[in-house]
C-alpha cells in the first residue's frame, strides 16, 4: 500500500512547489556548507591566531622577565667583579660602600637591600644601611650554606619575608634573595663570603601584573618543582581560597597545551626562563577566544535563516514565473482531455512552453482531422468493400442459369430461352448499376423480379411469387442487392422441400418517413438459433448456391448507407414460414443519387 501512496504524493505536488522546494533545499544546503566551512575555518584560524598571539605574548613577557633577572645578575656581577673582588675591605670599606650605594641607587626600584657577608656571618657592608638582627646567625641558614657550597652559581631563592635584617616595627618586606659566593680580601687574607641581593618582590609583581595576556588570560611564574613564585592570586591560593593547576605544570615542557581544569577548558603556554629553571605559564580560558558565545551562535543561526529567507522569496518568485505558463498550458490540456478539441491552447511563457502550446494545438487539430479522416476512410473502406462485394458476379448462379439456357435451346424451347437470357441480362445489368450502391426501388424490384423469374424456371415452378409495391414508393431510394439475397435465402432454405406450394411475396410500402420492404415465404422456417446465425455469419456456408452476399452483409450495408436505426429484422416460425422486414428511410432516389456522385 505504501508504494502506491508515495507515487501518489509526488504525483499530486505541482511543478511550482517541487521547483521551490528543490531550490530552497539546495540553497539551504549551500548556505549550511558555506557557513560550516567558513565557521570551521574562521574558528580554527581564530584559535590558531590567538594561540600564536598567546605564545608571542608569553615570549615577550619571557624576554622581560629574562631581562629583569639578567639585569639583577649583572648587578651581582658588577658588584662582585667591579667592586668587591679587588678591594681590600679592611681599608677601603667606605669606597666599597659608596660604590655599592651607586649601584644600588641605579637599581632602587628592584632592589631592597644589598649586603656583603663574611664566611663567619659578619655584615661587612650593607646598602641601604642595615644591621643584622640581634642574635641572627646567618651561617646556620640553609641558603648561606648552599651559596658557599656552590660558588660557581648564582642562587635565586623562593619569595620570602626578609628576616635577617632589623626592620622597623610595622614593616615586612617580601623579597627574592639572589646570592653568590665571593672572594673577600681583608688585609692579607682572602676568604669566602656571600654577596646577597634582596630583590624587591614588588618589582617582579609590577612587571608581571602589567604584562597583559589578553583574551581574559593571565600568567604566573613557578619554579621547576611547581611551587608558585608569582601568581595574580598567590595570596588566595596559599590561603586555600583558590586553586591552580601547578602539579601538572611540573611536567610540562615548553610549548602549547590544552587542559581541562575545574571543569573549564583552557589553553596553556609554557616557556622556561633562562638560568633559573623557572617556568612562565600563560593561561587562556577557552571561552575567551572561541566563537561559542550563545549570542554568536544565535547570530549565525539568524544569518543562515535570513539568507534562506531571501533565497526562498526569490525562488518562490522564479518558480512562479517559470511554472505559471505551464499551469496555463495544463489547464488547456485538461480542457482538451475533456474532449473539447476546439479549445484555444494557451500560448505564452518561455519559447519552449510556447512551442509546446503550439504543438499541442496543432496536434489537437490534427487529431481532430485525423479522427474525421479515419471515420471517413473507415466508411469509404467499408463502402468499397461492399462495392467490391457487390460487383462480384455470382458464378454459380451464372452457369446454372446458362445451363438452363443451353437445355432450353437444345430442347427447342426458344421462347423460354429468350426470356431467361433477357432476364439474366437485366439482372446483371441492375446488379452492376454502373457501380452505384443506391438505386430506385423500381430498379431493385426489377432486379428481384428477374431473379425470381429465372429461379422459378430453374426450379420448375416449385413456387410462385408476387411482388406488390405502391406506385409512390417506386421512385424512392433503395440499396442495391438488398432484396435478392433475402429472396435467395427464402428459395434455398424455405422452398427446397415445398412441392409447388411455395409462395414468396415481396411487398414494398411507405409508412410515413420510412420505407418498408417485406419478403414473406411459407417455407420451412428457421429456429431462433438459425435466425441468429444468419445475422452474424459472413457467408452463409450451409448452401453454396447463394450469391455470396449474406443477410448480415445486407443488414450492415443498410445501416452503413442509411444509418444505424435502419436495417432488417427476421421473424420465423419453423414449418410455418419466414418474414423478413427491411426498414429504410423514405428518401427520393434523386436526392441520394446526388450525394453519391460526390465521393
Amino acid at each position: 500500500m505504501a508504494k502506491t501512496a508515495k507515487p501518489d504524493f509526488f504525483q499530486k505536488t505541482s511543478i511550482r512547489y517541487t521547483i521551490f522546494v528543490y531550490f530552497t533545499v539546495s540553497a539551504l544546503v549551500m548556505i549550511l556548507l558555506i557557513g560550516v566551512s567558513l565557521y570551521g575555518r574562521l574558528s580554527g584560524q581564530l584559535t590558531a591566531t590567538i594561540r600564536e598571539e598567546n605564545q608571542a605574548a608569553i615570549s615577550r613577557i619571557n624576554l622581560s622577565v629574562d631581562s629583569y633577572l639578567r639585569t639583577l645578575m649583572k648587578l651581582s656581577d658588577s658588584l662582585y667583579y667591579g667592586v668587591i673582588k679587588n678591594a681590600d675591605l679592611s681599608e677601603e670599606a667606605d669606597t666599597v660602600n659608596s660604590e655599592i650605594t651607586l649601584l644600588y641607587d641605579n637599581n632602587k626600584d628592584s632592589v631592597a637591600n644589598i649586603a656583603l657577608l663574611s664566611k663567619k656571618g659578619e655584615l661587612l657592608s650593607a646598602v641601604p644601611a642595615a644591621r643584622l638582627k640581634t642574635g641572627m646567625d646567618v651561617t646556620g641558614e640553609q641558603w648561606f650554606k648552599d651559596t658557599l657550597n656552590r660558588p660557581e652559581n648564582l642562587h635565586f631563592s623562593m619569595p620570602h619575608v626578609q628576616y635577617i635584617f632589623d626592620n622597623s616595627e610595622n614593616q615586612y618586606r617580601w623579597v627574592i634573595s639572589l646570592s653568590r659566593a665571593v672572594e673577600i680580601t681583608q688585609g692579607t687574607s682572602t676568604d669566602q663570603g656571600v654577596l646577597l641581593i634582596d630583590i624587591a618582590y614588588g618589582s617582579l609583581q609590577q612587571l608581571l601584573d602589567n604584562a597583559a595576556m589578553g583574551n581574559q588570560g593571565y600568567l604566573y611564574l613557578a619554579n621547576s618543582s611547581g611551587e608558585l613564585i608569582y601568581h595574580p592570586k598567590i595570596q588566595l591560593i596559599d590561603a586555600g581560597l583558590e586553586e591552580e593547576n601547578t602539579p601538572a605544570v611540573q611536567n610540562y615542557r615548553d610549548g602549547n597545551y590544552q587542559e581541562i581544569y575545574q571543569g573549564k577548558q583552557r589553553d596553556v603556554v609554557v616557556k622556561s626562563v633562562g638560568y633559573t629553571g623557572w617556568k612562565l605559564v600563560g593561561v587562556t580560558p577557552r571561552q575567551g577566544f572561541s566563537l561559542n558565545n550563545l549570542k554568536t551562535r544565535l547570530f549565525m543561526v539568524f544569518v543562515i535563516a535570513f539568507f534562506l529567507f531571501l533565497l526562498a522569496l526569490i525562488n518562490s518568485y522564479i518558480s512562479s514565473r517559470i511554472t505559471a505558463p505551464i499551469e496555463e498550458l495544463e489547464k488547456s490540456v485538461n480542457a482538451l482531455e475533456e474532449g473539447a478539441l476546439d479549445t484555444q491552447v494557451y500560448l505564452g511563457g518561455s519559447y519552449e512552453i510556447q512551442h509546446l502550446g503550439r504543438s499541442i494545438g496543432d496536434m489537437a487539430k490534427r487529431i481532430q482531422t485525423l479522427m474525421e479522416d479515419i471515420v471517413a476512410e473507415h466508411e469509404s473502406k467499408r463502402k468499397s468493400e461492399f462495392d467490391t462485394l457487390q460487383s462480384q458476379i455470382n458464378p454459380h448462379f451464372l452457369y446454372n442459369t446458362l445451363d438452363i439456357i443451353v437445355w432450353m435451346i437444345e430442347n427447342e424451347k426458344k421462347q423460354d430461352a429468350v426470356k431467361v437470357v433477357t432476364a439474366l441480362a437485366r439482372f446483371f445489368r441492375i446488379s452492376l448499376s454502373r457501380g452505384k450502391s443506391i438505386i430506385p426501388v423500381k430498379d431493385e424490384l426489377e432486379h428481384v423480379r428477374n431473379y425470381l423469374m429465372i429461379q422459378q424456371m430453374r426450379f420448375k415452378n416449385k413456387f410462385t411469387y408476387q411482388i406488390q409495391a405502391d406506385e409512390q414508393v417506386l421512385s424512392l431510394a433503395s440499396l442495391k442487392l438488398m432484396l435478392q439475397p433475402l429472396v435467395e435465402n427464402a428459395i434455398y432454405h424455405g422452398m427446397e422441400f415445398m412441392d409447388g406450394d411455395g409462395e414468396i411475396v415481396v411487398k414494398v410500402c411507405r409508412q410515413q418517413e420510412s420505407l418498408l420492404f417485406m419478403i414473406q415465404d411459407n417455407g420451412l422456417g428457421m429456429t431462433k438459433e438459425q435466425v441468429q446465425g444468419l445475422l452474424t455469419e459472413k457467408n452463409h456456408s450451409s448452401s453454396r448456391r447463394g450469391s455470396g452476399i449474406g443477410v448480415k452483409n445486407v443488414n450492415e450495408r443498410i445501416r452503413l448507407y442509411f444509418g444505424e436505426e435502419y436495417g432488417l429484422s427476421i421473424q420465423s416460425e419453423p414449418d410455418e414460414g419466414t418474414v423478413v422486414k427491411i426498414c429504410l428511410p423514405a428518401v427520393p432516389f434523386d436526392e441520394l443519387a446526388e450525394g453519391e456522385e460526390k465521393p
Partner: protein
Amino acid sequence: MKRKQKAVLWLLVWICAAILPAGCTGAKKEEEKRSIRIGVSLYRGDDTFINNIRSELENCAKEYEQENGVKVTLDIQDAKGSQNTQNNQVERFISLGCDVMCINPVDRTAASAMIDKAMAAEIPVVFFNRQPVEEDMNRWDQIYYVGAVARESAVLQGSIVVEQYQKDPKSLDLNEDGVVSYVLLEGESSHQDSLIRTEWSIRTLKDGGVPIEKITGGIANWERSQASALMEQWLEQYPDTIELVVCNNDDMALGAIDALERAQVQGINLVGIDATIPGLEAVRAGKLLGTVSSDKEQYAGAIFSIAAAKALGQAAPGELSLEEGKYYWSPQKIVVQP
C-alpha cells in the same frame, strides 16, 4: 482658533509646571549631599610621621561626621614607596567616584601624571608633606598643598641646639675640645626637605655660634632601621667622638637612639623634626634633646577641611588663609624636655 490657542497655552503651562520642580530638586540635591568620599594615598605607610597624620585625618573625619551629619568615607591606601602603585591607586579612586583626593606623592617629580588624571576627572587634589614642583601646582586651580616650611623646621631645629649650647655648652661639647662633633642623618636624597633641612639646620647652628665639626653623614631614607644601622657603624668607627646627632626626622633619631641603647652609650645629644608620638615620648624620657612639632591636629585638620570643602563643591575655607590660594603652611614650634 481660540480653542486651539487655549489648548496650546495650557500645554505650555503644564510643561513648565513639570519642569520647575525638577529643576528645584536638582538644585536642592546639591545642597543636601549626604556623603563624601575622600581618597588618600600615602607614600609609605610605615613612616611614623605620615602614620600620625593618618590617625589625625581619621579623627578629623569622625568629628566632621558627628558635627555635620555628613558621612565621610575615607579610603586610605599605602603606596609602599612605589609611584606606580600610587598611580594605580589614583586611578582606582577616580573609578570609585571619589569627590576629592589627598595625595602624599612618592615621587614629587612625577606628580603631573596624577594631576592629569585628576583634571580629566575634575577631582580636586590636596597634596601634602611632599611638595610637587611649582609648575605642576600651577596647572589647575583645584590643586592644594599642605605642608610645613622646611626651612622653618630646620631653623627651629638648629635653634634647639643653639639654645642648649648657650645654656650649657658642656652638655654638648662632651669632651670639651671646644668643638661639637656631629654626625648627620639625612632623609631621601630626592626629597626637597632633606636638602633644605640639612642645609638650614647646620647654618642655623653656625649662625648661632655653635662651633660644629662634621664627622660624617649618611642617608637613612627617613627610616629608623637604617638610621640604627648607620649609627651602629659610626659608633664603632668613631668611638667616643660623636657628640651630636642631627637628624632630618624623628624616626631616624629614634633609630640612632636604638643604636646608642644597644651599644649602651650615654650622653650623646640628638635632635629630630616631626614630633611624632614616639618622638615626643623620647623627648619626655630625655633621650631626645628636642624636636620640631607641626601641630598634627592642625596639619591634618587643614588637609581635611580643604578636602571636605572641595568635596562638597565649596571654596576652600577662608580661615586657613592659603598662600596663593593653594598653599597651607603648618605652623611649627620647638618641643624640648620641660
